């Protein structure tokens, strides 16, 4: 039975230790233990939220968000973390996850609880509820433009943290509704380390917090590391406390890795590999300047089929709430990631799909195309990803126009038009005007052919 008792034991044994830094205030493990117990009492005795309900937790890392997350696990709730990064899609996500109660944490860390009128009916949700087990719903990207909701039993996710590992002061950089963010949080607290939170994920803010709070572990993305290099924020802040930088979620350029090694020679760089559907695998880079790594660890098996990575995980999700099962009959998950293999090491080459990855943010071509298609004078549009050294990829729109505008004129009009319709990272960074048709005879978009 999943329980957070082992965490509370660790908190109690380290009562004076620093657990969370939030808005330049330090919260001890003693504070955290009390806060979790207090919420547990209120959830149970005051009937704030029915045990077993599907609860959305709308928050960024904060003392109350962390206490509530743990108390909700203990209360056998199925937790759906949502952050402001998915603000526009919250109604859709709440609908898909069949959220029965909303817990929202405001800017001042005040807590609002509100029941919804829904009752969860999805068989997988019911299955967890009836078994009296806590759950976690994480939204992942799907190739069709619809985010997929991965439902986990919280038990197996927690289990791996019962093994003690290195105690580190970690940056809460990855978001709360991301498998990497959940992993950082549980890893850090279960080893009596400290989670340092930041109000914004900008190079200057993050580097200043690393210096001020002596952060040792920075879990981040290759794009953010590029920004740290380009902004030279590392020159203005003393980053000597850093011991380990982990990066995942997108493809890393060798040049970035090399430069990071020069700038922060004492810091170990470790690639991680995790998926919303499976949890985070244990990984070991061949060396700090290598993109080759061993992945797996206890509870994970890997194999490569037709150049694509497949994983069998004990902590695998139960299934999607809004898509068919992606597992093979014998329980292997097809990641869709193309890999090269060298002995026991693998090198992740990228996703074999059309999703465009702008700095770790996923962009679906269809969404971009349907927005631009609405513009006056646009007869056809195709959005594709194009390689870029800073953000991995940029969105390129190939547009057939009837207006005779120049690229610069159209770009300006397009940006104004897309503002408010598309998230900023989805607005094409590059525009190419074309004269030929962008469709094949079958009326399929010509995504891969070079259209000029």
């Amino acid at each position: 039975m999943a329980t957070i008792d082992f965490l509370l034991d660790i908190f109690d044994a380290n009562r004076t230790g620093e657990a969370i830094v939030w808005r330049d205030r330090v919260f001890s493990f003693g504070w955290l233990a009390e806060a979790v117990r207090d919420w547990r009492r209120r959830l149970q005795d005051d009937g704030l939220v029915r045990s077993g309900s599907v609860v959305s937790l709308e928050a960024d890392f904060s003392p109350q968000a962390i206490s509530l997350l743990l108390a909700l696990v203990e209360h056998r709730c199925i937790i759906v973390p949502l952050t402001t990064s998915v603000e526009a899609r919250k109604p859709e996500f709440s609908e898909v996850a069949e959220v029965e109660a909303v817990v929202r944490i405001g800017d001042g860390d005040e807590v609002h609880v509100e029941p919804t009128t829904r009752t969860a009916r999805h068989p997988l949700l019911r299955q967890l509820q009836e078994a009296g087990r806590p759950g976690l719903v994480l939204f992942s990207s799907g190739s069709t433009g619809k985010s997929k909701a991965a439902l986990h039993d919280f038990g197996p996710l927690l289990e791996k943290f019962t093994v003690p590992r290195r105690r580190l002061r970690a940056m809460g950089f990855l978001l709360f509704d991301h498998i990497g963010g959940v992993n950082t949080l549980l890893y850090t607290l279960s080893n009596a380390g400290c989670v340092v939170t930041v109000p914004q994920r900008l190079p200057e803010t993050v580097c200043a917090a690393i210096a001020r709070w002596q952060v040792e572990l920075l879990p981040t993305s290759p794009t953010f590391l590029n920004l740290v290099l380009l902004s030279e924020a590392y020159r203005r802040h003393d980053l000597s406390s850093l011991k380990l930088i982990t990066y995942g979620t997108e493809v890393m350029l060798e040049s970035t890795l090399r430069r990071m090694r020069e700038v922060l020679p004492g810091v170990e760089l470790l690639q991680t590999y995790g998926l919303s559907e499976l949890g985070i695998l244990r990984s070991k880079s061949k060396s700090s300047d290598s993109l080759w790594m061993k992945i797996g660890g206890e509870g994970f098996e890997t194999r490569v089929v037709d150049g694509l990575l497949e994983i069998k995980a004990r902590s695998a999700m139960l299934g999607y709430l809004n898509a068919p099962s992606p597992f093979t009959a014998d329980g292997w998950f097809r990641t869709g990631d193309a890999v090269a293999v060298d002995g026991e090491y693998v090198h992740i080459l990228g996703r074999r799909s059309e999703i465009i990855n702008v700095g770790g943010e996923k962009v679906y071509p269809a969404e971009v195309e349907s927005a631009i298609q609405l513009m006056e004078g646009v007869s056809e549009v195709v959005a594709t990803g194009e390689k870029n050294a800073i953000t991995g990829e940029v969105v390129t729109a190939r547009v057939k126009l009837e207006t005779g505008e120049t690229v610069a004129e159209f770009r300006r009009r397009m940006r104004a038009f897309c503002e408010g319709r598309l998230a900023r990272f989805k607005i094409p960074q590059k525009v190419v005007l074309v004269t030929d048709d962008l469709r094949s005879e079958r009326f399929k978009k010509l995504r891969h052919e070079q259209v000029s």
Partner: protein
Amino acid sequence: MSADLVRLIVDAVQEQCEGRGSTVAAADLGPETPLLGRAGVLDSLGLVTLVVALEQTLEDEYGVSVSLADERALSERKSPFRTIGTLADYAERLIDGARQRA
């Protein structure tokens, strides 16, 4: 440093800021304007969009195809993206290099 390149970059930065609803007078922008960092006017998406737009303009106006943000730019000991001026210098070096090869 080429005044034309500085002007191109100033225009592109202005277009960026406009897109984000903030207005910056062209007169306030010059070679010393920091692009990134504490006092910088751009964030990551702004930078990428600026760079891509600039590459397109250089191709249109100078007839040269250069890559301003590639592995080479990221490996430079001093970042070319510190200020409008350093970016103009870097672009000039790339344009000269591309012309010599042509």
